[in-house]
């Protein structure tokens, strides 16, 4: 489904067709849920975040600027919801402790030791850096798309992503993960 088809679904939703919004949920629920799961590394929280994201998107749809892509706008809402969740959690426990539990590991469905180290390293990254790495490598978004989601220029995405990658490498090296290791 193209950006144009998203715009049609948005217009139909604004005209009162709830099934059209259901179409947008069908298309993006997996991506939003997985982004949230990787950001907060807890399945129940990810489910709540995905639900709040779509409900907020629906209630604010009339303010959506059609010159942007719908998914960029949706991802931005999702990342804000992740930030809110992480802020609430900061008062209780660090993210890496959540992941260290068996439940956290199961939730993130980690397949190998290297994948587990990557999840732990991502958890140790700052939230903004984690979002950049995930949007680029897991979501395969371009600098421009990431810029649109985060509300910064593509140039800034590039420089921040480079520094996020270097920080991630440092953490992975401390865990003994490197190419050809």
């Amino acid at each position, binding site marked *: 489904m193209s950006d144009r088809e998203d715009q049609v679904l948005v217009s139909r939703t604004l005209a009162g067709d709830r099934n059209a919004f259901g179409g947008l949920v069908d298309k993006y629920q997996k991506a939003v849920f997985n982004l949230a799961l990787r950001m907060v590394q807890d399945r129940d929280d990810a489910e709540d975040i995905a639900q709040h994201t779509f*409900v907020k998107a629906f209630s604010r749809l009339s303010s959506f600027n059609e010159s942007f892509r719908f998914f960029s706008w949706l991802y931005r809402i999702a990342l804000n919801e992740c930030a809110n969740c992480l802020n609430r959690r900061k008062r209780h426990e660090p993210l890496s402790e959540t992941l260290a539990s068996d439940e956290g590991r199961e939730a993130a469905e980690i397949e190998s030791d290297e994948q587990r180290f990557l999840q732990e390293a991502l958890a140790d990254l700052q939230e903004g850096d984690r979002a950049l790495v995930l949007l680029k490598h897991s979501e395969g978004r371009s600098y421009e798309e990431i810029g649109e989601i985060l509300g910064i220029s593509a140039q800034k995405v590039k420089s921040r992503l480079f520094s996020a990658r270097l920080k991630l490498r440092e953490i992975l090296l401390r865990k003994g993960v490197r190419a050809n290791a």
Partner: protein
Amino acid sequence: MLEKSLTDLINRKIDGALTPEEEARLAKRLATDANARGLLDDLSHQGLLAQKMAVVEPPATLKPSIMRAIEQPALRARRSWVAHSFGQFFSTRRRVQYAFAFSGGMVAGMLILAVGLGIVRVGPHEESDAAGTSIIESSTPVFQPIEERKISLGDIQGTISTASGRGEHLITLQLKGPGDSRVLLALQPETAEVTGIENLDGSKGDYTVHPGGIELRGRMAYRLVLRGGASVRVTVTSSGKKSYDGEFLLER
């Protein structure tokens, strides 16, 4: 320590954004610089690991819960439109007397209509016990017990019981758990509805009724009357984790 121009080239190489001339420049540098090669290998490797992260299917309940939730603002909007219209009509102090007159007339009219149609019986009850307890009308459902399940999962303890009678159902939750507990009751089919709710203890909490179900937050001691419905799925979440998920049949 590698200079910034070299790390930039390596980063752009990973993103496949190098020009042929930059590719050649980087290749020349990599041939003689083991640190640069190590950095390129590590960053490529971590990029690949991130790409290969497992994609998890969202829960099947996600879309229905979203669609139910977006129905709520619409219901509220409709209610507020009605409230607004009445508010407009009775907006000025001068009209308050009209409001009382209007309300009184409406109540009187409805009573006369109800008596006329035999909905309200006037006169002595034909049957009552010595304490004056009202008779059970033939139209009042008598609930027959169907099931009682003891729940003892993590920090959630208690019972959930169901009863049924003449198309209506009673579900009684007597659960104890942390203050952040939530109970979601999803009725099947979704055309079924919650017609009554009674709090069985004095603890704090609130609830939201929506088409096809109800969400209870905080306290978990309630008696609910449901109309229609063949089954109800009860999901209890506490401390952010799903503690109980079970389906109850509402008919024998």
